[in-house]
């Protein structure tokens, strides 16, 4: 199996925040899955208390600072007004609070726990700049994954901005004796209905983009989709391709996101889905999991709901290492198909240009990469994903992508009714399974 490449442990001199990659490597060596919430509060006091609570759980955790949506789009005047008036934003305005305020907040969070900044910016330069001034060097995103789904920024512009931001972050980290870490968001495109091979390909391409721009420590994401065995195969393929395409000397790990589409409405359904994601993470060989909570379908979760989700996921992950879990391990799964498809997409993209930023831009322009249901004008928009009868996510239309396999979607026509059904499929099956008090069978067992 392709074990993630490890790095020389970066010693964290007294008081310095732990290195995210080294922390995950140490946990993996003990067979422990690292779990992480999404969390962002406007008030530094509340943000610090949330981070301390995450650090104090029974689980092995990474802390998260999620920035607010005004900071995300670079509307810093609005963020500043809100802070001055004491209004609540939907995240931590990291570029608005003075650096000494954020540093003082972080001083009270145990330094042994890494902290990652999550932001969603198509142009992250101001976010990375603010991170650097507060001693934080771990973040996430990518030129494709934070541009195409949520912004109107041209892809070429986003790639430029991300290039500059990556160089700056690595320089700043090095100047302070630290190592920058970036996680790709490319494995999570639009949250649902993007077949695994494209998610895996985009995650690898964004990791290569980071590495070309100076990063020596990266993580590759993949979001749980509709079929547990298929997700194990996808994580296995992601690991194999990261090993193949990332140069030696680059330390990396893979990270799974609990389902990001329409979430079950019942607490029991939500827990079943979280449990399933923890098992997929362990069996598929991911070393970190970004969790969701029982409140997800309704509102932004509280700190308590996040802690409960982290501890529940951590216990489920430990259980997945026993024989009670019916899922195959990555080395038992036949991941050849996802591997081959993803590899074909990566190769086709890299043919366009030796610079990964330019390669991504050109590939999208020519439809060689085409994210299903993505409305951004730099995306061809001819591909379609669909959920097959067996629960697997398949291609209903491939656009101009050079996928090596011909069959797949079986001529599924995606109508408005069918789209609604597919968007709600996972929530519905888990709410239903919770009612009847059993795991959704078809999702747990390998297809016959």
């Amino acid at each position, binding site marked *: 199996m392709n074990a993630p490449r490890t790095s020389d442990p970066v010693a964290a001199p007294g008081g310095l925040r732990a290195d995210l990659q080294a922390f995950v490597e140490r946990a993996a060596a003990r067979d422990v899955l690292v779990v992480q919430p999404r969390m962002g509060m406007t008030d530094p006091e509340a943000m610090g208390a949330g981070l301390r609570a995450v650090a104090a759980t029974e689980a092995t955790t990474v802390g998260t600072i999620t920035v607010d949506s005004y900071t995300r789009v670079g509307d810093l005047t609005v963020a500043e007004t809100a802070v001055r008036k004491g209004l609540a934003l939907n995240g931590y305005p990291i570029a608005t609070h003075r650096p000494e305020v954020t540093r003082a907040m972080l001083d009270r969070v145990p330094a042994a726990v890494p902290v990652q900044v999550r932001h969603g910016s198509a142009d992250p330069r101001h976010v990375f700049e603010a991170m650097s001034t507060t001693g934080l060097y771990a973040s996430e995103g990518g030129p494709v994954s934070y541009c195409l*789904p*949520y*912004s*109107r920024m041209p892809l070429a512009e986003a790639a430029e901005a991300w290039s500059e931001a990556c160089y700056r972050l690595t320089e700043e980290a090095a100047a302070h004796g630290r190592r920058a870490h970036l996680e790709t968001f490319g494995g999570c495109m*639009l949250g649902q209905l993007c077949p695994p091979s494209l998610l895996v390909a985009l995650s690898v391409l964004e990791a290569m983009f980071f590495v070309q721009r100076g990063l020596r420590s990266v993580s590759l994401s993949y979001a749980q989709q509709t079929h547990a065995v298929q997700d194990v195969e996808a994580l296995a393929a992601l690991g194999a391709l990261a090993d193949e395409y990332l140069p030696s000397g680059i330390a990396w790990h893979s990270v799974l996101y609990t389902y990001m589409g329409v979430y079950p409405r019942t607490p029991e359904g939500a827990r079943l889905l979280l449990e399933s994601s923890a098992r997929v993470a362990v069996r598929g060989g991911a070393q970190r999991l970004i969790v969701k909570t029982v409140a997800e379908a309704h509102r932004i979760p509280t700190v308590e709901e996040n802690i409960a989700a982290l501890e529940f996921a951590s216990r489920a992950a430990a259980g997945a290492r026993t024989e009670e879990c019916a899922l195959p391990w990555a080395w038992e799964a036949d991941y050849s198909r996802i591997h081959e498809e993803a590899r074909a997409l990566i190769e086709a993209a890299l043919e366009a240009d030796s610079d990964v930023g330019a390669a991504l831009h050109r590939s999208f322009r020519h439809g060689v990469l085409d994210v299903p*249901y*993505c*409305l*951004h*004008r730099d995306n061809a928009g001819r591909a379609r994903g669909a959920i097959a009868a067996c629960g697997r996510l398949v291609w209903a239309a491939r656009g101009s992508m050079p996928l090596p396999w011909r069959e797949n979607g079986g001529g599924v026509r*995606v*109508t*408005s009714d069918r*789209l*609604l059904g597919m*968007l709600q499929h996972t929530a519905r099956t888990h709410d239903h399974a919770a009612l009847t008090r059993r795991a959704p069978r078809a999702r747990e067992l390998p297809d016959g």
Partner: protein
Amino acid sequence: MSETSSTALRPPNLHVLLTTVSSDSHTWNLVYLQLLLEELGCQVTNLGACVPDALLIDEVRRIRPDAVVCSTVNGHGHIDGARMIRWLRADPDPAVATIPVIIGGKLGIAGDRDPELLAELLEAGFTTVFTDQARPEDLDLALGRLQPGTAGRPRAALAGAR
């Protein structure tokens, strides 16, 4: 869905400009509505996420659609939507100022205030307003009431009063 009866009421090949409000980055609602509108026989131009007011108005001027359908789910629809429609209704070009505009979705962050928001948005200048309880046939019927080209009551006077 009562497709035959309503389709008979509606002129064929209605060109719909599909959009959302400036602060809303959600797109699954837009993807769904595009499919639904196409199934109802409309030609659709989909502007995608986070559409600035000025861009929408420019596109109405350029494309000359028969109607605008605005879908929003982030809870800021009542703020961003009202601002956008007042601006559009005040446009000096009568073809822009009188275009039928339908808005629907999660209009506010608290569902129970929706009846109030609905009235406010109608007064601001929308032709039709739907909450997130609307069914596909409601949109079909609303489109059926439109007259392409000349559809919608002139709203310039109303907008000018504000």
